[in-house]
């Protein structure tokens, strides 16, 4: 009976897995087709003859620069977001001060602002400090807009950290900085890895900020590369598929890497704890 239950469970799990991996296969097939095959035929039909030239088209132009910009802008934003969010969450949950609730409330309101109503004010703001057409405006926006959600995720975990550990550390004469860097951060590796993955996905796929704040080609990111195939009246979808396929590769690799860190983080903190 129990065995049967397991078989049923696995069948369901595997069906979900197949459903979830399908989009990747679909995207690959998409990237080898032309418009007509993409729209007029079933999405999982094989291309009549693979249009590998879509990849060639996608690779032309400045995609190398875009790629490089995507990587470094995302990376800077992730580091800033995760670091600042951890520091702020640490201050709010572990330190004792009167305004902590209010400040937390401020961050929560930050979750709620719709992107498009912030766009024109933000542009004016960056303009006034000369940050338009400067990648700084992009990674600062990424950081600011993703701080609230990152903090919310961290919060649930920080509350569960046992107080005893830090008490012991402080007793031993450990400074706050040391406590944060040596004890708190390592203890939260798994949730940090989670927030890194989430921020990575946000930043990697973002294009409204890049589009609005950046004009020079040399600062644009991968999501903009797609626009090379969107014309005034007609869109060439095959190369868009190829661009999407190229741009998803690094993120899958990083995702698997950080996904493993979630589990590793748990076990290593368990040893220390």
């Amino acid at each position, binding site marked *: 009976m129990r065995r049967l239950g397991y078989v049923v*469970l696995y069948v369901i799990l595997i069906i*979900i*897995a197949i459903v*979830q991996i399908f*989009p990747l296969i679909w*995207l690959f097939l*998409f990237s080898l087709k032309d418009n007509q095959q993409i*729209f007029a035929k*079933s*999405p999982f039909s094989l291309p009549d003859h693979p249009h590998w030239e879509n990849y060639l088209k996608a690779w032309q132009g400045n995609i190398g620069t875009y790629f490089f910009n995507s990587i470094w802008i995302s990376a800077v934003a992730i580091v800033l977001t995760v670091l*600042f969010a951890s*520091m702020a969450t640490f*201050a709010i949950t*572990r*330190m004792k001060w009167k305004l902590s609730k209010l*400040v937390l409330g*401020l*961050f929560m*309101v*930050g*979750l709620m*602002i*719709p*992107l*498009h*109503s*912030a766009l*024109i*004010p*933000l542009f004016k*703001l960056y303009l006034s400090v000369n940050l338009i057409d400067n990648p700084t405006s992009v990674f*600062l*926006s990424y950081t*600011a*807009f993703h*701080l609230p959600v990152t903090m*919310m*995720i961290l919060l*649930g*975990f920080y*509350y*569960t950290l046992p107080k005893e550990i830090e008490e012991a550390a402080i007793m031993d004469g450990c400074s*706050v900085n040391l406590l944060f860097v040596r004890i708190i951060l390592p203890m939260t590796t*798994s*949730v940090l890895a*989670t927030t890194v*993955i989430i921020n990575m*996905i946000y930043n990697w*796929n973002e294009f409204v900020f890049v589009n609005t704040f950046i004009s020079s080609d040399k600062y644009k990111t991968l*999501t903009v590369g*797609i626009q090379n195939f969107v014309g005034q009246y007609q869109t060439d979808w095959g190369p868009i*598929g190829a661009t*999407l396929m190229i741009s*998803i590769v690094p*993120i899958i690799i990083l*995702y698997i890497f950080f996904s493993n860190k*979630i*589990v590793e983080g*748990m076990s290593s903190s368990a040893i220390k*704890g």
Partner: protein
Amino acid sequence: MNKVMSNKWMITLYILPALLLLLILIYIPLVLSAYYGLMEWDGIGNMKFIGVGNFITAIQDMKFWSSVYHSFLLALFSALSLLAYLGISLILASNIKGSDILRKIYLIPMLLSSVAIAQLWIKVYNPTNGLLNSFLMAIGIDNPPAWLAEPSIVLYAIFIPILWQYAGFYILIYYAALKNIPESLVEAARIDGASPWQVAFKIKLPLIKGVFKVTIVLAIVGSLKYFDLIYVMTGGGPNGASEVMASYMYKVAFRSYDFGYGSAIGFLLLVITLIVTFIVRKLTVSDEKELQY
């Protein structure tokens, strides 16, 4: 201990970088957009102060209220779907065989950009050669609906890709939370003879309650300001049947060139979200004092 942890200088140091970014890059725009909300402004020429005129327009605007209703529905479904994600996470986090590889596969769709997801689901829903209708016709349903063209269906049809897009996000958070539970607690319960169900409901779920509450807020807030797939897949149509607050705001501000009114809607979106979040918090905060998010 108390002395060290309440050192004002240290607190400032830790909170300030995040707080500054928040105040400068989110609160200044917020205040500015509330200010634009009081103006009649096409975003091009001169502004004209009209007081609360735009807000009165919004109150009388049926299109706005129908977009509010649609956003609420999305928020409701998003919150409900969390239960399913939690269930999947419980299975993945238990040490069943292959859970590691399954987890990695399950989260792959989350990595796709909205552009790709929109294209995928447009193809799923295509009325003649789409995946869904091909399947329905194969099992003998003669005239399956045109999912994105029927005003009565389109809203629900568009919810599915949205919920699916975010599944990975929540599963990931739950998974990390569940894995964070000390193995010793679970082990002890097992030795006491608890079944896997009991372990899940009596030990694991109570321990991640805090995380769960956070995700409820994230799901609701995220839904109320949701924009991406709706804009790409239906443009809020047909005839407003799938319009949500954010897509309506965008259309008014960037397509109808009524930036003052658009800003007012954006501000109302924020106020509505605040009220809903406040109510949800009241409903979910229990006797424990720890979780004051």
